């Protein structure tokens, strides 16, 4: 660790908290910073783009399958109904990102809770919780999500819940592994020796130390969740009333041979978003890994 280097001047050594130190490392990582910039750009575009652009993504505004560049009014062309693709991209990004974030949040919530309880208490509780986790893990994820969405309404909320329910076992196992490792460390015994109770030790002592890999995994889960939502929408199981990138691809997939653009541009948007998220996740992984710090 560079901050522990006694030769470093005192000021530089005050690199502050481990999180701050990780941020310093992250900032030096160019691909990660590029990913972060791209992600911020995409988020800004989905938040304010539709307002600035002003088009209605649901309205039929032109002839169907107008190729990109043919009409300056619709730079990326129109889809099979004659709807503006740029408007669709700008409006559809919000729900896509929201589903991704909500699903990742749910994944963390369930995964961390179950993993922490299993890893901390061990024994019978661990056994029970891990069998429960395995039950979810062996379910074919896409199929299970499809069943959930078909059984209930194909709304964005349901899709987020479905994705969360199929992806938490990974997080649970990761959290359990971290807890198993950390609970044996001396500062946990020391915390017990000053009279801290189990809950406090789990959430205030162990969890903060287990966070780095969990943050990385949460970031990557966002990317996976976005792909998942796109997949469900592509199969026609998305929310038909809310524009999303996945829905655009799903609705236009029948015409992919005659008109490539209504499918390609939302696909590119998904690719860029997941790419940006992965770069950030990878950067976080490096930033939290002390072994890579010297590079």
């Amino acid at each position, binding site marked *: 660790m560079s*901050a522990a280097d006694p030769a470093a001047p005192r000021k530089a*050594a005050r690199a502050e908290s*481990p999180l701050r130190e990780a941020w310093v490392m992250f900032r030096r990582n160019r691909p990660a910073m590029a990913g972060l910039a791209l992600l911020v750009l995409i988020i800004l575009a989905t938040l304010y783009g539709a307002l600035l652009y002003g088009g209605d993504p649901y309205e039929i505004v032109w002839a169907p399958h107008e190729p990109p560049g043919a009409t300056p009014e619709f730079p990326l062309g129109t889809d099979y109904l004659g709807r503006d693709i740029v408007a669709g991209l700008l409006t559809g990004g919000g729900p896509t990102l929201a589903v991704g974030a909500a699903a990742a949040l749910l994944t963390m919530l369930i995964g961390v809770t179950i993993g922490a309880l299993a890893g901390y208490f061990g024994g019978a509780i661990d056994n029970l919780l891990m069998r429960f986790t395995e039950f979810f893990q062996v379910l074919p994820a896409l199929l299970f999500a499809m069943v959930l969405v078909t059984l209930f309404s194909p709304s964005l909320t349901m899709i987020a819940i479905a994705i969360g329910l199929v992806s938490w076992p990974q997080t649970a196992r990761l959290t359990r592994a971290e807890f198993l490792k950390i609970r044996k460390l001396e500062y946990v015994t*020391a915390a*017990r*020796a*000053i009279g801290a109770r189990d809950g406090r030790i789990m959430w205030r002592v162990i969890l*903060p*130390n287990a966070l780095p890999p969990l943050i990385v995994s949460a970031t990557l889960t966002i990317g996976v969740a976005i792909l998942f939502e796109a997949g469900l929408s592509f199969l026609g199981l998305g929310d038909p009333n809310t524009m999303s990138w996945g829905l655009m691809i799903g609705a236009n997939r029948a015409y992919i041979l005659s008109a490539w653009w209504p499918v390609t541009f939302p696909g590119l948007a998904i690719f860029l978003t997941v790419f940006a998220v992965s770069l950030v996740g990878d950067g976080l992984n490096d930033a939290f890994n002390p072994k890579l710090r010297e590079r």
Partner: protein
Amino acid sequence: MALLEIDELKVTFRTRHGPVTALDGVSLRVEAGETLGIVGESGCGKSITALSVMGLVPSPPGNIAGGAIRLAGEDLVNTSPRRLRRLRGSEIAMIFQEPMTSLNPVFTAGDQIAEAIMLHQNVSRAEALSRAVALLDRVGIPEARRRADDYPHQLSGGMRQRVMIAMAVSCQPKVLIADEPTTALDVTVQAQIFDLLNDLQRETGAAIMLITHDMGAIAEMADRVAVMYAGRVIEEGRADDILDLPKHPYTRGLIACIPNVGKGEGGEPPPLAEIPGVVPPLHLLGAGCAFRERCGSAFERCAAERPRLLGPAAHPAACHAVEEGRP
């Protein structure tokens, strides 16, 4: 009634080799203001004794199979986990061996001390933090106010151990258990830590249980000493008596192992002494004396019968050779 009494304590562990007795009838007493040194090699039961008092023996596989631990008359073995948790940190506190790993790396030194205070006393965060700074100052950390905002990795080993001590004494415990508090530190820092512990003890009148394998530490700190081997106390007495007139061959061996830097008879420093062999695995202990394989004075009786702690009440030893007056 002594402040802390351990009476015939028996701790067993479940292992692959079946149940193993880690502590076999250990009895110890510590008075207020007194320092009891517990010495012995790795694996002799020192740390398990400390963890038993804290109620922190990992269970399973560990289990207190018998005996009693009393703090000011209050039984600690059969008390509720809740009561035990309340006593931990406030009445009994512990300093750990590795200051490098016994502080939580993601919180500042001040935060961690404040946390310990707030667990047991109903004070505001600001008040706890200002007390933490005062404690850091008390344990000899320069610029305590600034250092309170340091994370453990920004502190040296000696400073971290001072932070641990500040944390341990934050609620003025009656009993302070120090498990090899200086093993991981520089020799020069060791002396400072001992001085600090001695000072704190004078101020608060706490009883200290010092666990160590370093006879030098015993000479520096302890009023009384208990020597442990393979889960039993094999000699006990005033520190001066044990250092000057050790009875048990094992204690004599330990004292012979203190490096002597001064000139010996030939003008050269004497060669370092050693006790041959290692502590036998606990599941292989037979009926006889656990030390007999490594002992120069062993005779037939040692293989047949386990020696009991006998002799004058002020300085008993568990050795057949001592009992029978053999050389």
